[in-house]
């Protein structure tokens, strides 16, 4: 089933890019919509009696070599599988593709939508793969469409920034690659077989037997790659430029898609072996999370460009994932489960928050042609609907209960109190910072006196309203009825935390 899905999406993306002409937008939306419906039904069936393990596994030996006299065996597998976490991420990746395509400008032509579909395809592929070779292939594949999107359809300095973005993330990826090789080599030393299976290489019993140098080398590669994508504090300088320069569709894909890759990498791939982390490294990771939260909050406060501000907000939200990852290593029992599932939920719900914010900002920008806070002002008088949606996205970011952002942030804060104690104050401080600058930003841009320089503005039309309403409704659904997702996530987290 899954295999068929990957084939269909690839084919559809090629068709959209080259053959559909002016119908490419509607065609890609129809295909993605059908696939999403199909996938939701599929996961309802599959996850009805979920046991927390990897399900719907599928694997075949793609290439293999065995030599009897040299005792070499090399296996390259193509293996797929779903967990509760990856299933939700695949659904959100499909939704993000829809969100990003739906706000795309029709005149950009087929290639634009084809690239967005390819990015979505890479994301879903990444989440489904259970073999490191293909994990890495999809990890890199996602970058290429985004690079082209920025380079072709971006705004200021697009050529420089597209290359900067690519190189920044490429460095991380290549160190990830070296880590994979290291693990594979030592797996061979222990079991006389070369394999790239995630389940084999990321097993505690194997990794506890390899030399410290190789172990720490591999940890370094994984953490570097994931922290660049997240982005975490010292590795974030690609973030604001890339978000600002890319077209809005690309920004939605970046904030809703690429960022989840890092969350998945930390919690879904790396977590099983984290009990081998040295204690100082764990404290360092938690520290990075805390510093990122406060730092991004402060930086966002001083931004005058709304898009940059939301970019930093999204990074600040993702630092909760780092904190969850770090504290989950230290904690035990039920707290660990709460921590892990909180981190996963944050990764997953962040998609809705970011998509809503960037889409609403796009519709405002389309009319006002400015994203500067001081260029706006009093928008609420002329565009009440758009302003409402924009404000809703702000409220979701700052973690208002009943919106998507709340559940994750709450559970992470609660559970991290059990491990890092009074340092939770920093998280609270970060939350207050986020709330402060978001409300301040909203006040300056949406309320107050109307800036007459903007001229006459029309409010959202019906289609735009429907789009934003749809995103908002899904965000509220996630916030009001989180049990549906949280149950699956916590089952998986229980399994991951070694409590079953």
């Amino acid at each position: 089933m899954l295999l068929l899905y990957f084939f269909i999406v690839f084919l559809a993306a090629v068709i959209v890019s080259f053959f559909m002409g002016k119908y490419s937008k509607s065609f890609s939306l129809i295909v993605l919509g059908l696939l999403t419906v199909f996938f939701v039904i599929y996961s309802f069936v599959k996850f009805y009696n979920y046991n927390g393990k990897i399900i719907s596994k599928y694997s075949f030996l793609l290439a293999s070599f065995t030599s009897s006299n040299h005792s070499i065996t090399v296996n390259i597998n193509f293996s797929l599988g779903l967990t509760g976490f990856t299933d939700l991420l695949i659904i959100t990746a499909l939704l993000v593709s829809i969100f990003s395509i739906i706000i795309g400008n029709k005149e950009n032509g087929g290639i634009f939508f084809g690239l967005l579909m390819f990015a979505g395809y890479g994301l879903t592929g990444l989440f489904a793969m259970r073999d490191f070779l293909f994990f890495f292939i999809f990890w890199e594949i996602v970058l290429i469409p985004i690079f082209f999107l920025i380079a072709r359809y971006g705004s200021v300095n697009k050529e420089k920034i597209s290359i900067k973005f690519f190189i920044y993330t490429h460095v991380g990826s290549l160190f990830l690659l070296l880590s994979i090789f290291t693990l594979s080599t030592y797996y061979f030393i222990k079991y006389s077989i070369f394999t790239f299976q995630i389940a084999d290489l990321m097993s505690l019993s194997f990794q506890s037997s390899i030399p410290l140098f190789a172990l720490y080398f591999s940890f370094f590669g994984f953490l570097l790659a994931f922290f660049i994508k997240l982005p975490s504090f010292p590795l974030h300088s690609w973030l604001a430029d890339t978000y600002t320069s890319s077209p809005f569709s690309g920004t939605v894909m970046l904030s809703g898609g690429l960022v989840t890759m890092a969350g998945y990498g930390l919690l879904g791939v790396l977590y099983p072996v984290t009990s081998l982390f040295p204690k100082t490294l764990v404290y360092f990771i938690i520290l990075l999370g805390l510093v990122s939260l406060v730092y991004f909050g402060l930086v966002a406060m001083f931004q005058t460009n709304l898009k940059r501000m939301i970019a930093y907000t999204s990074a600040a939200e993702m630092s909760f994932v780092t904190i969850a990852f770090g504290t989950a290593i230290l904690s035990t029992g039920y707290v660990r489960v709460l921590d892990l599932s909180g981190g996963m939920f944050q990764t997953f719900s962040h998609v809705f928050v970011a998509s809503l914010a960037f889409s609403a900002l796009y519709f405002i920008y389309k009319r006002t042609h400015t994203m500067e806070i001081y260029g706006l002002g009093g928008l609420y008088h002329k565009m009440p609907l758009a302003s409402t949606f924009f404000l809703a996205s702000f409220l979701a970011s700052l973690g208002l209960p009943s919106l998507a952002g709340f559940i994750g942030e709450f559970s992470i804060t609660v559970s991290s109190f059990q491990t890092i104690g009074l340092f939770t104050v920093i998280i609270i401080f970060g939350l207050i910072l986020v709330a402060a600058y978001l409300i301040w930003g909203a006040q300056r841009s949406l309320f107050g006196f109307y800036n007459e320089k903007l001229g006459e503005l029309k409010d959202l039309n019906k289609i735009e309203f429907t789009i934003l309403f749809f995103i908002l409704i899904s965000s509220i659904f996630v916030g009001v009825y989180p049990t549906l997702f949280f149950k699956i996530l916590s089952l998986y987290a229980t399994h991951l935390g070694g409590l079953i």
Partner: protein
Amino acid sequence: MNYEYFYSIIVLGISGFISLAIGIKNNNKKILAGFTALVLIVSFILILLGTKNYDVLTMNFNTFDDYWALIFIASTLLIIIPSMNDIKGRYDVFYALILFMTLSMLIAAFTYNLIVLFVSFEGVSVITYVLVAFNRTRRNLEGSLKYFIISTLGTSFNILGISFFYLSTKTFDLFSVNKIFFNKALLLALVFIIIGFGFKLAIFPMQQWAIDTYDGAPNSISAFLSTGGKVLAYMILLKILYLGFVHDYNYVFYFFAILGILTMTYGNLSALSQNNLKRIFAYSSVAQAGYMVLVFALIGFSYFPANVIPRSTFIRFGIASAMFYAVVYIFMQGGAYIAMNLIKKDKIMIEDLDGLSRKSRLSALSLWIFMLSLTGIPLTGGFLAKYFLFFSLIVGGLWWLAIIAILNSVISVFYYFRIILNSYVSEASESDNEFNLAPSVRYPLYVTALITIALGVSFFIYTYLIGLATI
């Protein structure tokens, strides 16, 4: 004596003369190109059909050699059709020379005798001097003269190296090297042989002729020089180093680790500041040779104790990745050079690509595929080649070398992606570049791009090559 194994070589030799004979009557390039391509395909098939593992006349026919022979035929086959566009003059002579050159390369692929290796290598060199100057323009002649002088220097180093090799091992046959009689002579031989073949491979201190020659030669000949000619020198070095030097001889590792690092760093850094497209590709081919040379460092190295990972294991991995890198390299680098035929200019600057994707979408796509492949992005051959190369480095325990190579491949993103940006992003800008979109330019490009993609998704090739990688 069984001549079955020489069929491909004999076919090539006879067909070279037939091609000359056709030229007496008429000089139709289509007929001659078709004939040459046919002959090359026939000899390709003959090698595939031949029985394996047979020794005759200092030549050794096994699957390892067959693989390299097939690569060499592919590298000449690649330039048959593109050369119809940029070669002017006597086509019969040109295609006959191509056939004779392939013959020389096949002999080099099959032999393990240093003298025969040397002679066949010289055969290829002499023919390429002529090919570079074939159009007799000023640029061609200048490139050819530089190439000729430097290459002759390399030849003399080769002779010296081979003589010293004989002095210390008392044999020319690589398979019968089993005792070292004179240790210092062996070191001299190593140095001289590295210099001699290193000139053709264009590794770091010996690279400057290559930049000028690749720039000055006709596009398809640049494509051949940077792929087939290089891979030939690479294969010869692989054979000599693996069979002649590697056993208990650590210098191979030190020399090539240093040379590899210098070569790739130099190539990548110099390409950054270039605006001449053919020179960028020349530097990129220098850098790619730097990655390939790392395999030599690997086969001279042992990090793990023999009971943990036997040396034979990672040497096998290294040679297999060298074989895979070679075939991918031929298609991606050759493709990049034959894509230059799209531009109707003698001196090709990077701005001349502006608006390519508007004029011909598929040609631009093919060019991007070559660039992505040279960078090492998944789903292209270049990715798998780099993947397995770095993998074998790690298996051999050379972490630091792998890290340096990876940082270099990050640097290379800058200039490869600049080319992509120029042909793609500048679409909207006003540019009146004229492109040569004749079918004989475009279709070879599409085919090469397809092969590059196909190599990128054929995961089984590497595992198959591990089986072959026993000399």
